[in-house]
């Protein structure tokens, strides 16, 4: 079980938390103008990074608040947790390792 450092309450066991998926996924600014591809990206496509991953957690059985975390998905170790609205303290991977040639 993970020990998760809630930025509001301090370290607590994973059982108190709900995972909230990838962090920093912004809803299209003007939904009526967003194309099908932009909606697909927002609704369905995720980085699924192997390495440092930015994700949301909610301290569901604690303060109830959402916050963000950077976790290494190859070790499950947290690098940082930070409050919603704050910039990630460490850069996370995007999942796309290389664009290759064209």
């Amino acid at each position, binding site marked *: 079980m993970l020990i998760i450092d809630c930025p509001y309450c301090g370290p607590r066991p994973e059982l108190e938390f709900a995972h909230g*998926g990838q962090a920093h996924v912004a809803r299209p600014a003007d939904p009526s103008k967003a194309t099908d591809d932009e909606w697909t990206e927002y609704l369905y496509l995720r980085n699924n990074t192997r390495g440092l991953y930015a994700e949301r957690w909610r301290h569901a059985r604690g303060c109830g608040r959402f916050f963000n975390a950077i976790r290494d998905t190859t070790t499950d170790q947290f690098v940082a947790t930070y409050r919603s609205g704050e910039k990630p303290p460490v850069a996370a991977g995007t999942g796309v390792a290389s664009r290759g040639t064209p």
Partner: protein
Amino acid sequence: MQKFSAWSLLREAFGGHQGWKSQWRRAAPKAEYDAVIVGGGGHGLGAAYYLAAEHGLTNIAIVEKGWIGGGNTGRNTTIIRSNYLFDESAALYDHSLKLWQDLSQVLNYNVMFSPRGVMMLAHTVHDVQVIKRHVHANRGNGVDNEWLTPEDAKAFCPILNIERNIRYPVLGAALQRRGGTARHDTVAWGYARAADALGVDIIENCEVTGIRRDGAGAVEGLETTRGTIRTRKVGVSAAGHTSVVLGYAGVRLPLESFPLQALVSEPVKPVMPCVVMSNTIHAYMSQSDKGDLVIGAGTDAYNSYTQRGALHINTHTLEAICELFPMVRRLKMMRNWGGIVDVTPDRSPIIARTPVKGLYVNCGWGTGGFKATPGSAHLFAWTIAHDEPHPINAPFTIERFRDGLLIDEAAAAAVAH
């Protein structure tokens, strides 16, 4: 290929079993192939076998970063069934179930397919309605499934607790008699041996580190830890690591990878004649031929590539198992382990072309890929050989998410997610 038969067994018995040969070659990568499959699990090995056996492509290779069958093929709970709700899914999974039925004969390898029946329990009024809907939908699609009363369910699986005084009493069950189990390792080995006999190179300890593309963007080869391999067709069948491999070609997929755990008890005499699954309280169990009870737990909450999960997930499952099967309460659990499963938003797989020419993907099998091994492999081989999907896997594209044509087994699938 050394054919297995009663006669060959007898002959080798007289020779002290010294005459058995390796079942496949330990191949080194050649400079160029007509097609390369990435991922040496059941789905990838099967795809290579069908490419060679049915589509005449024999100058092909499988590259596997570890050893064959060492990923989810060797880590699952081996349940086989086809009782999915939607027409597209029923066609896909039943195609697979039909291939399981004579797979041992086709491969000349005993995959120990055992259609012992898969029973799914209903614990609430909602469960009863949903499961009956499944039964009717399945029968409409020609997939066998029948509704059982709690007493019928107990008659089929005598160790089941149908007392009404438990937290989630059994209110009924659906039974697919054609469903069952198979021996997971032999599926990988059987396909590997049969593919090797047709000339397919099985290259282990060879991790893909890049996808080479030409000026027009089409695939022209793979970078691997064992050098560059030229090829115009790459089929990726890498389960939990599909996002990573497709990322080398800049393709983003609607996938998230989660740890999924399973565990086995100490071996006991035969007590359980079938597979029992419960969606609501999240437990499923069957008994392997060597006697251990094979128990499937749920996915962990967070994405991960670690091939391990948290103990509280197993504890939760065992609580449910102990309530449903009181006789297992004093059994010791021997081992638990995790695999990394790639889950799509609608819990249906993707077997399709990608936007990159020459690059194909078979992924998104999530928590239930083992049952689909032969069908998935068969259809993936077809898709690679023809550069277009077979009618059965035509709906299972990447574009279905953009086009709003989801095959939404997420709520409808008979297992908990």
